[in-house]
């Protein structure tokens, strides 16, 4: 597993945009360095102040769903009884295999995340705090927690739990399920976790990057936060970028940055290298280039292609690869990662994955027509009929591939493939789930 490179280091290539980078220092910062740079955790002490600031700032969730943070904070703050239990969870599960930004953030700036966790806890009146991680907690996180505890910086003790390496492990209800001692499998809503979550208590689940932004808004205010980004989608976000010529790297980008600045310019001369862009990870969307060349990293621009930024995974697919084969590989993974709890998803996703594998095989034009018809029917059948968004995201990914790689699909039906490089491009973890313990 190659280590992603942090391109946002001050003085690094990303420094062209004023106000960036905000989240990621050049090297891991321990508590001492963190306090020297930021000062102590700015507890607000008065109710509602932080929530109002977050509302003005327009911060949205950085875990993929982009839900307005102030609304979630507000719901949890109002929910339940005054003296009752309330829970906040910092979600660092980063279950998207292609995303590495939360891992990087937790390694370089754990104290920013932990500040955000304590501030969110104060804002909603939480009595319990959790940190949910993809890997066993690294030395930086453990040291940060220990140092903060010894200095009495944290109002609430933080329980650290490791998530299983499953695609759905970071889903909000799966997080609560896992923290409650069950498997990391989604549960049906209603009730929403913000009303009845962990142990029946109102629960705030927030991505670690979101909490880091929140910790900065608490210090510098909403106007500072809005100094970068667009009017409707302010601020910056961490992206994980895959380009053919480099290793995967993490970059903090202002929302609204042209994708060509992040993924490489597409023009007549240099587009020989890239055939398509994947935006938003494996529940995201394939964008055809050069059609999408002018698209910017904000949902308003991306929506024109049916895409959304998600958790910031951006991949440029090299022209020497087969987009159909890549899609089939990833869809096979997504199908295997289905919780298997809901009939439509359980039945539909494996069939969709198998159909894509057949299209990637060389079976003839008649076969292609039947298979695409099956694919479209199954996609329609699974969408919106699961307890979570796994089937919906998978269908979005597959449909965008059917459009963007239509020429390649036709080629395969004639027994040809345009790829000259057979090695897989998009990263997938080894090991698919097989036993019940794989979800705990």
């Amino acid at each position, binding site marked *: 597993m190659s280590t992603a490179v942090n391109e946002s280091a001050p003085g690094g290539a990303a420094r062209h945009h004023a106000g960036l980078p905000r989240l990621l220092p050049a090297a891991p910062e321990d508590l001492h360095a963190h306090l020297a740079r930021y000062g102590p955790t700015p507890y607000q002490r008065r109710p509602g102040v932080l929530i109002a600031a977050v509302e003005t700032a327009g911060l949205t969730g950085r*875990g*993929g*769903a982009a*839900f307005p943070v102030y609304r979630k904070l507000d719901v949890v703050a109002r929910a339940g009884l005054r003296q009752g239990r309330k829970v906040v969870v910092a979600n660092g599960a980063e279950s998207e295999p292609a995303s590495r930004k939360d891992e990087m953030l937790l390694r370089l700036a754990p104290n920013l995340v932990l500040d955000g966790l304590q501030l969110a806890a104060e804002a909603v009146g939480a009595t319990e705090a959790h940190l949910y991680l993809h890997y066993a907690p690294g030395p930086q996180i453990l040291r940060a927690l220990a140092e903060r505890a010894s200095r009495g910086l944290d109002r609430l003790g933080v329980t650290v739990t490791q998530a299983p390496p499953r695609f759905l492990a970071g*889903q*909000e*209800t799966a997080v609560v399920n896992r923290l409650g001692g069950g498997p990391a499998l*989604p*549960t*049906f*809503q*209603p009730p*929403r*976790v913000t009303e009845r979550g962990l142990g029946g208590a109102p629960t705030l689940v927030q991505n670690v990057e979101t909490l880091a932004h929140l910790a900065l808004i608490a210090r510098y205010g909403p106007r500072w936060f809005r100094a970068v980004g667009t009017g409707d989608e302010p601020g910056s976000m961490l992206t994980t970028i895959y380009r053919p010529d480099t290793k995967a790297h993490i970059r903090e980008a202002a929302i609204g940055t042209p994708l060509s600045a992040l993924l490489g310019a597409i023009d007549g001369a240099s587009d020989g290298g890239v055939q398509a862009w994947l935006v938003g990870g494996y529940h995201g969307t394939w964008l055809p280039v050069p059609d999408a060349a002018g698209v910017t990293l904000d949902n308003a621009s991306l929506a024109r292609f049916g895409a959304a930024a998600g958790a910031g995974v951006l991949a440029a697919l090299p022209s020497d690869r087969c987009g159909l084969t890549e899609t089939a590989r990833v869809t096979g993974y997504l199908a295997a990662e289905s919780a298997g*709890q*809901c*009939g*439509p*998803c359980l*039945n*539909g996703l494996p069939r969709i994955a198998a159909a894509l594998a057949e299209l990637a095989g060389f079976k003839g034009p008649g076969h292609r027509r039947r298979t695409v018809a099956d694919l479209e029917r199954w996609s329609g*059948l699974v969408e*919106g*009929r*699961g*307890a*979570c*968004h796994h089937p919906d995201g998978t269908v979005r990914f597959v449909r965008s591939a059917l459009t963007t790689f239509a020429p390649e699909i036709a080629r395969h039906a004639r027994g040809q493939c345009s790829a000259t490089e057979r090695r897989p491009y998009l990263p997938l973890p080894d090991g698919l789930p097989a036993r019940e313990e794989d979800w705990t």
Partner: protein
Amino acid sequence: MAENLRVNPIQCTGHGVCAELLPELVTLDEWGYPIIDPRPVPPALDRDARRAVAACPTLALRLLRSEQPARSG
């Protein structure tokens, strides 16, 4: 007081009783799972809807008041 029929897809095991009792609002997909009309239940079908909810062997079918937000991401 609008009510919507919703199925808990985790509890649903595809018995298909709902589709028999309320074919106007429920059809079965090719795997035997219910496809539910998302619009509010018309008053004329209210009694049948309640009967279908009561008849579900796993109590997966529910009648929920107005628009409850659906699953999260």
